[in-house]
Structure formats: C-alpha cells, structure tokens
C-alpha cells in the first residue's frame, strides 16, 4: 500500500537517512527499530511530510507522490503521532482534536457535533479525558491520548506511532494496544516506532532495523529472536558499546532525604550516591527522575526534604551554590537548557566555570587564557571539528553534547548528575559519553544517571532506583539488574 525506495535525506551535508527502502501493507503493523539517531524519526518525518522532500521514490496505492506537506499527507490518509506533540496548549481537548479540520456550517462552527464526535472517538479508543479542559493542564500521558485521537480524526489509512508508550502506564498502554488491534482489523497500516522489545514482539508483523541512517534489514517478527534484533540494532555485541566500569563505592557524596518538590513532581524521594559508583535513576518519561536531579541542583523548587553533600545539608540549593560545592548537572535538553547555541563553542564550554581562577580574577575575565584552558577537556572529549570559535549551533548533536559535557571537566567535581546523557546522539558519541562516565567514576567521583535507556542502566550502574509517579518505588542492586526486573517496577506494581 505504501512503498518508499531509495530515501535519502541530508542535514548540513550529513546523511541522516541513506538510501532506505520501506514498505507497508494494509492491516499490517510494521515496527521500526533503531537507536537514537539511527534515522527512525527522519524516515517517519519524511513519510508524514513534516520534513521537506528528499531524494527517493514514494508510492501510495500505486500512485507516485512528488511533493508532500503535512496537509497533503493527511489528505491521502497518512496520520502521525510524534513524540513531540502538535497540540496547542491554550485550546481545549475538543478544540485540539479538530484543529485545522473544524466542521462548520457556513461561517459558524458546529461546536456540539464536534464535541460529540470527539467524545465518540475517545470512547472508541477507551480513553477518558476531560473534553473541555485546556491541554496545558493535562498530564503528559493525557496529552499523548489526545494526540492519538487527533491523528485518527481523519480516518487514516496509514498511522505512524512514534514511541507512543514512552509516557503511558501499563493500563493506558493496554488501551493503546487494543486500539492498535482494532485499527489493524479495519485495514489500517501502522508504522510503530519503539525500542521496547516486548511491544514489538506482541504487536508487529514485520520489523525494519535502521542503524546510522542505513537500513540493516527487514524481518518477519516471528522469525527472529530478541537477541538477533538487538544485534541488528547495535551492530556490535553490547559489551563493546559499554565499557567495563570498576565500581569502588566509597563515602556517601550525595544524599537526598524525603525530598518533595513544590510542584509535587517528586514526592518523598530518598537516595544516596557514593564516591566511585554510578547510580541509575529509572522510570517512565514524566516519572519524576528528571525533576529529582533538577531539584538537587536547585532548578526545581523544593517543598520539603533535605539535600546533603557529604554530611552537610544544603539549605536552599541554587545552581551557582551547587557548582561551587562541586556538583555538576547536565540537562536533558541541550537546545533549550544546555547550550547558548548562538555563541561560540568556547563560551559554551566555559559558561559554568567563569568564576574559576583559571578564567577570571575578580570581575575580569581572562579571555586570553580561555582557549588554553578549554583545549584539554575538548581534546579529551574528541570534539569534532576542533573549532572553538564556531557557533555551538553548527555542531552535530553528539558534538554539542560534548560541548556541554566539557563543563564537567573544567574542574574536578564530586558529584555529576546526568539527565538523559545520550538522547539524539550517534553510537560513536554514545561510546564517548560512556567512557567519560567511566573515567569520572574511576577517578573517584559520584555519578548519577537518569535515563530512559534500559541498557545504559543495566551496563553502567552499580545500583538503580526506579521511580514511579514521583516516588522512588524500588532500589535494585547490580546483581538484580535485568530489563525485566527494572521494567516490572516501572508501573509501580509488582508484576
């Protein structure tokens, strides 16, 4: 029904997608598997028309398509649910579901009919949502449901689902799976992006694996093992990606006691991190592990609880006081919170260290020594290209990440908080990040990693805290760490 051949897409000369073929049958669930940066999102964005047209041939129902915008894609029956939502925060659930496809009689909206239709649509999916609430006030899981309902308003022939369960609980995900089965029975073709093995196995008919922008292969799901899929995805045995870390847990460097944030995104959470070990924070997107890191670093207001560094309690953490106390935090979202993209790489590398004697005395900035100071950290991180005067925005995702990480190497910190350290970077850069973590830990620092990538936790961490709905629900020691073990705590249950 849908067939693309030779799809190629370049960003700044770098091929994000290289000569990829892909096809989808009626009533088929076709899973796309690959690591972050493998080209999955580029491919689905091209199919959905959100990225401008690139090289390759695109056929739908035998018709060759020459150009595509989201509008045209919708007209030929292609709908997409991306991880980044396309919901307008100031409109209500109903208004969002019909945004851009409002039903009117003459000049006026058919408000009742649309409300009715939206209610039916959501009922059919088994989603219960407050129809007249502004989307801004919904939780991430609820927004996800709105987004799915919105994609189905056009009765699509092709539905793209990009990690739809990343923020859903068990029960909610179950409803989604039922909806997928229903649509499949109706003959809708579904492209399903996920990296949870169990979902791919239960839902999909075929799997296409991408790596580094290239297609590795398409296989029938029932004919391949999980291990086979993982090897196709990673391209090397897992052990080669992750370095062996020698954990030598020493004194407690960071202790969080019964911490609750003002927004109640974290409730009564406690954990400890010792020198010489990697502590993992696991859980669904939105479970509070990011907020926990942020609260420790003073970016999230704390309502109750204590943050202890060694045996000293920090009264009110602020980023500057925490940096001064040798705690370093790397935010999850490089673009929005990590980097000043319009400024040169050099300034991004030094921006959290301007008070170091190497860089300033009093108010005076020793700009003449700046390049010298950053050379070693940037060389250690293998920044490519090694161009400190280039704007941060001109580097690739992996190298932008390195610019941010360089801050942690300007002096030796006691505690490093990593929030999603490998989002949107390629395998090579990932290995660099893991090696950095290894060298930090083995030099005696305490590292906290909050991540949604289970393999990272299982291979890097000496202990993992699992969070669910703002609370710490489990603490797992290294020997208990396995994908199934960790996942079983994701939904707060004892499955």
């Amino acid at each position: 029904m849908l067939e693309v051949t030779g799809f190629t897409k370049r960003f700044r000369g770098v091929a994000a997608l290289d000569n990829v073929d892909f096809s989808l049958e009626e009533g088929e669930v076709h899973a796309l598997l690959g690591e972050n940066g493998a080209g999955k999102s580029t491919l689905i964005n091209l199919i959905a028309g959100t990225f401008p047209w690139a090289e390759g041939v695109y056929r739908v129902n035998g018709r060759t398509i020459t150009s595509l915008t989201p509008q045209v894609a919708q007209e030929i029956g292609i709908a997409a649910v991306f991880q980044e939502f396309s919901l307008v925060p100031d409109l209500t659930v109903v208004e969002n579901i019909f945004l851009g496809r409002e039903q009117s009689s003459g000049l006026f909206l058919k408000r009742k009919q649309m409300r009715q239709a939206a209610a039916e649509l959501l009922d059919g999916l088994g989603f219960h949502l407050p129809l007249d609430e502004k989307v801004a006030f919904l939780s991430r899981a609820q927004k996800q449901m709105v987004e799915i309902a919105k994609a189905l308003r056009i009765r699509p022939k092709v539905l793209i689902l990009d990690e739809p369960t990343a923020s859903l609980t068990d029960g909610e995900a179950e409803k989604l799976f039922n909806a997928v089965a229903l649509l499949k029975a109706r003959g809708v073709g579904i492209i399903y992006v996920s990296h949870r093995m169990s979902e791919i196995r239960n839902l999909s008919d075929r799997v296409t694996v991408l790596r580094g922008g290239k297609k590795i292969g398409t296989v029938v799901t029932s004919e391949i093992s999980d291990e086979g899929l993982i090897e196709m995805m990673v391209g090397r045995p897992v052990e080669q990606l992750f370095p062996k870390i020698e954990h030598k847990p020493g004194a407690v460097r960071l202790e969080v006691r019964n911490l609750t944030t003002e927004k109640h995104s974290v409730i009564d959470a406690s954990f400890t991190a010792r020198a010489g070990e990697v502590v993992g924070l696991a859980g669904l997107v939105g479970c509070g592990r990011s907020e926990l890191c942020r609260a420790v670093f003073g970016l999230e207001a704390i309502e109750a609880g204590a943050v202890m560094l060694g045996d000293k309690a920090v009264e009110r953490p602020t980023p500057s006081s925490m940096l001064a106390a040798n705690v370093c935090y790397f935010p999850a979202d490089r673009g929005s919170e990590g980097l000043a993209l319009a400024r040169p790489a050099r300034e991004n590398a030094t921006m959290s260290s301007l008070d170091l004697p190497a860089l300033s005395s009093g108010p005076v900035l020793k700009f003449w020594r700046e390049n010298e100071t950053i050379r070693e950290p940037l060389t250690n991180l293998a920044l490519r290209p090694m161009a400190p005067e280039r704007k941060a925005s001109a580097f690739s995702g992996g190298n932008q990440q390195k610019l941010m990480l360089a801050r942690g190497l300007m002096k030796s910190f006691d505690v490093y908080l990593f929030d999603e350290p490998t989002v949107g970077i390629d395998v090579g850069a990932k290995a660099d990040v893991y090696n950095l973590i290894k060298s930090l830990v083995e030099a005696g620092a305490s590292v906290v990693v909050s991540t949604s990538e289970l393999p990272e936790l299982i291979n890097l961490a000496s202990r993992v805290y699992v969070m669910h709905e703002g609370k710490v629900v489990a603490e797992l020691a290294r020997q208990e760490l396995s994908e199934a073990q960790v996942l079983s705590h994701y939904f707060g249950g004892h499955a």
Partner: protein
Amino acid sequence: MVQASSLSLKEVLRVARLPIAIAVVLVLFGLVEPRVLSFGNLRNISLQASYLAIFAMAQTMVLLTRGFDLSLGYTVSLVSVAASMAMVAMGGGDASILYGVGAAVLIAGGIGLANGLLIAGIGINPLVTTLGMANMVLALASTISGGFPVTGLPKSLTAVFAERSLLAIPMPIWIAALVFVLLFLTLKATRFGRSLYIVGANPKAAVAAGIRTVPVLVLAYTLCALLAALGALLLTARTGSGEPNLGGNLTLEAIAAAVVGGVRLSGGEGGVGAAVLGALFVTVLSNGMNLVQIDGYLQQICLGVIIIVSLIVNRDEARR
C-alpha cells in the same frame, strides 16, 4: 583550503558591509550635493553620530539580553530637564554642574533599576515594562518643566562638553569613543559581559550554568539608563538648555541604529561596534537628506523602511 579562502572573502564582505554602505551613501549624496563631502560636514557627521552612538550602545546593552528599552528616549528628556533644574537651583555656577550630574545619575539609575527589577525580578515582559515606564517618565519630564525649556545653565557646560576640542576632535566624540572602549572591554573581558551574552542567547541555559541572571539583567538595564543620562547631559550641553522634548525620537533612532548595525533582537549576538557603525549609517543618511533638503517627515518614513530592510537582510544571514 580553497573553500576556506573564498569563505573568508565572503566573511570580509559581510563584516565590511556596513562601512561600504556608509561610503556608498556618502558618495551618492555627494554627487547630488558636493557639500556633503566637505571636511566641515564630515566633522559634523561624526559629531552628530557620537551622540546617537552613545544611545545606540546603551540600547545594545539590553538588546543583547533579548530585552528592549522603550523608555530610553524619555529618560533623556527627563534627565535633561531635571539636571538643568538642579544646576539652575544650585546657582548656575561651574560647581553646579556636579549637582546636575548627580541628579542625572540618581534619576537614570532609579529608572534603570526599576526597569531591571520589574523585568528580571518580577518577570514582566520588557516591552510592556519599558513602554509603561516610558510614559511615566514622559509625564514627569513634561510636568516638572511645565513643558518649557530650562534656561540659565552654566556657560562652561556648553563650552567644555559641547564646543571644546582636544587634538582638533570635539569633546563629544572623545566621550563617545571612551564609552565605546569601556563597553567593548566590559563585554569582552569581564564576567558580566560574558554573562550578558549567555543570558541573552539562552536564559535557561544561563541559569543551569550557575549564572545569576537577575543581577546581570538589572545591571544591564541600569547601565542602559545611565548611558542614556550621559548622552542626555551632552545633548543638554549642546543646546544650552534643558529640553523636555529632547528624546522624543531617540528611542526609535537608537533601536534603528543598533538593528541596522546587526545587533540581533533574539539576543546574544552583536556588540557595541555594531551599534556605533549603525549610528554612523543612520546619521550619514539623515545628514545627507537634510543637505539635499528632504522634508523631515519623509526622513521619518525612511527610518522605518531602513529598520525593516535591515531586519530582513540580517535575518538572511542568520539562516546561513
């Protein structure tokens, strides 16, 4: 390598675009009216541009933080009137100049501090804050003066700060040059200057990097207002009286100069050099139009068009 050298030629053209444009405009006006290129007029242009340059540099300090100061022009009016009244009240002798300067610093400092605290401390949108402040300041300027110029200023004020020359260069140019050097060094070689850029380029990242954004912003707005006050004193020295209408168009002109020079409204890019060049360009243009006797109101139209054109031009550059 070949590519690199052709790129750098492009770079040269990009950097030199404004000086080239200034030269072209000068020559074009010179063809119509040869007086434009006379030594006397060129000196005059530099003198006029030095005032605007100070205001453009002031505005740049807040533009770099993604902010705006719409109260700049009326701050100039208020400082001019209030400083003059202070000088007259203190007898109008040479020593009274100090009181005038004191009044200017207090008033401008207060306005800048208020802007900065409202914007950074409470978090109100800079446009609306400074728009509201602009109208309050305007009201004060016109009420305390009763709408009339304040006369009876010390003679030495004009003699020293407007008319005296040092090495054949008029005092205002020296002062503008000094301001330029100080601000250039501040931006390049102080933690405050660096923080200003980072806060402007990405305020959230600045916070996460441990930069205390509130003091940085408050200082930026205060600096902007103090520089406006300096310009106001110089303009007052030139006219020889405190003028309630002194700053009417200055807000727009200062923003125009900065934007023409290439300071980005999205924050974090540009510098005082850009502001000075932009001020020179705007001055050359208005001087030329004056000399070929283009109506003042038409000049206002031109100013608007120039702002839009330079916004479009600078934007294309960002895309590349």
